[in-house]
């Protein structure tokens, strides 16, 4: 049996005396969309941020492809980092406002691929097309893009790193219903093509039921149940 892409073991987080969550354990298989359901303030965003290494939990293990990112050397973690990416809730602050959409898109490529200018342009164009962006979007500053267009650029940007795992923290809660459907379907398409796994964090059960393979319910700071979803309706 192959290792899960992500395994979270007995994760706990305390701020001072108050416990945000405790004893949170779950694992996500390759190519799976795993839903994390919780009300606002339930700590689900903090769990997501711990997984991508933006916050440190008080206790527990986070195993990415079998290796614990919390007990890893700096260099090793840096090499692993591109494999674990995150999409944030608020599109309006997800891109650098002083860089054009395309510059935002190719930033990770510039950092990691070592591609030269023309190859960089071409790869960026491919990614833009993959995520359904039009050329005129790419030449704009983020303030002139809609929420849906920004989330597409975020997805293109993330995909340039060929991640094994993406934490999507309420990626569509600020979007219109019709745009939400487009973005979620795009995420499914990318999953089919690349085999990426998602941890989809949301407070909208209808959305989770529609796109996830499994859903974990976060209540009172811990996971109370995990539901298997038979997908295949309209997918």
């Amino acid at each position, binding site marked *: 049996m192959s290792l899960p892409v992500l395994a979270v073991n007995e994760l706990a987080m305390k701020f001072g005396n108050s416990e945000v969550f405790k004893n949170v354990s779950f694992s996500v298989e390759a190519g799976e969309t795993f839903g994390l359901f919780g009300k606002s303030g339930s700590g689900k965003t903090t769990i997501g941020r711990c997984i*991508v*290494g*933006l916050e440190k939990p008080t206790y527990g293990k986070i195993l990415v492809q079998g290796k614990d990112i919390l007990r890893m050397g700096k260099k090793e973690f*840096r090499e692993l*980092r*591109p494999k*674990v*990416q*995150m999409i*944030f809730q*608020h599109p309006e*602050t*997800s*891109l*650098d*406002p*002083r*860089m*054009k959409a*395309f*510059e*935002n898109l190719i*930033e*990770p490529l510039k*950092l*990691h691929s070592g591609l030269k*200018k023309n190859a960089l*342009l*071409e790869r960026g*164009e*491919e990614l*833009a*097309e993959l995520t359904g962006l039009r*050329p*005129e979007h*790419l*030449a704009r*500053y983020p*303030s002139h893009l809609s929420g849906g267009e920004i989330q597409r650029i*975020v997805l293109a*940007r993330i995909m340039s*790193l060929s991640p094994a795992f993406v934490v999507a923290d309420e990626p569509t809660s600020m979007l219109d219903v019709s745009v939400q459907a487009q973005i979620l379907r795009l995420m499914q398409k990318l999953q089919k093509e690349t085999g990426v796994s998602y941890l989809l964090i949301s407070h909208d059960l209808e959305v989770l039921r529609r796109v996830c393979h499994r859903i974990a319910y976060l209540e009172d700071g811990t996971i109370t149940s995990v539901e298997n979803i038979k997908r295949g309706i309209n997918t």
Partner: protein
Amino acid sequence: MDNIFADKFRKEGLLLPEAYGSDFVKKVFQRKDMLFALVALLLFIGLALFAPLISPYNPNTIDLKNKNLSPSGEHLLGTDYLGRDLLSRILIGAQTSLSIAFGVVLISLLFGTVMGCAAGYYGGIVDETLSRVIDIFLSFPGVIFALTILGVLGSGVFNLILALSIVQWAHYARVMRGQVLSLKRQEFVLSAVTSGAGDFYIIRKHIVPNAIAPVLVLATIDLGHVILSIATLSFLGIGLPADIPEWGAMLSAGKEFMRTAPYQTIFPGLAITFFVVIFSILGDGIRDILDPNHEGGEIY
């Protein structure tokens, strides 16, 4: 992959970050007050640069026969109590004031920005330490603090720049720290972190460009304030040696002849006011232009 994509990119100047700058210049030209201030400033910087060539007299030549003269064809702005030509002294004085002001602002801007950036970005013990230092420097009243430093170092152009920079840098550090603190929590910075970008890259590429606007506004307005501080120190008789013409010193010397020869205080005073006003117009304008929320019309 069709070529329309690629062509379009190059045409739209997709990879040229300068585009933001050209926008800035365009907006400056749309504002009449800023354009006026900018032209006036450049004109006077030009006059100051060529002051030695265009001054009608040597600013330090004493001519006691012609002291305390009112403006006339020979001395356009009159003469002072030692018979020195006021116009020549104001022009050379502009050189002194402007170069000290730019020097002070540049040094405190650079040092303050670096300190503020470090405090805001690294947080924790670095922030604790730097913030206390910043608070200490902010708690001294500016002119008195500068006076003390000059008292220890002695007068002179270099020491004056140093003293005023020591007084000013903490203001920049404080503004920068606040900016960085709010920026580093924003999603685009976090996604640069998760993409594996290093601290230095993130600071250079994302933090500084987004945080610098209010610091630049502060710097522009500060240019006026520093000119005022120099004048204050000279007025008090500390700061610059007597052989360097300076507006504050001229004001101070002229005050004894207020009744008989008021021009000796009026003209240097006007020069000081003029620069302070010019720099505040420019500072206000830059603030409006750099503030993305200032633009009308983008409601949806």
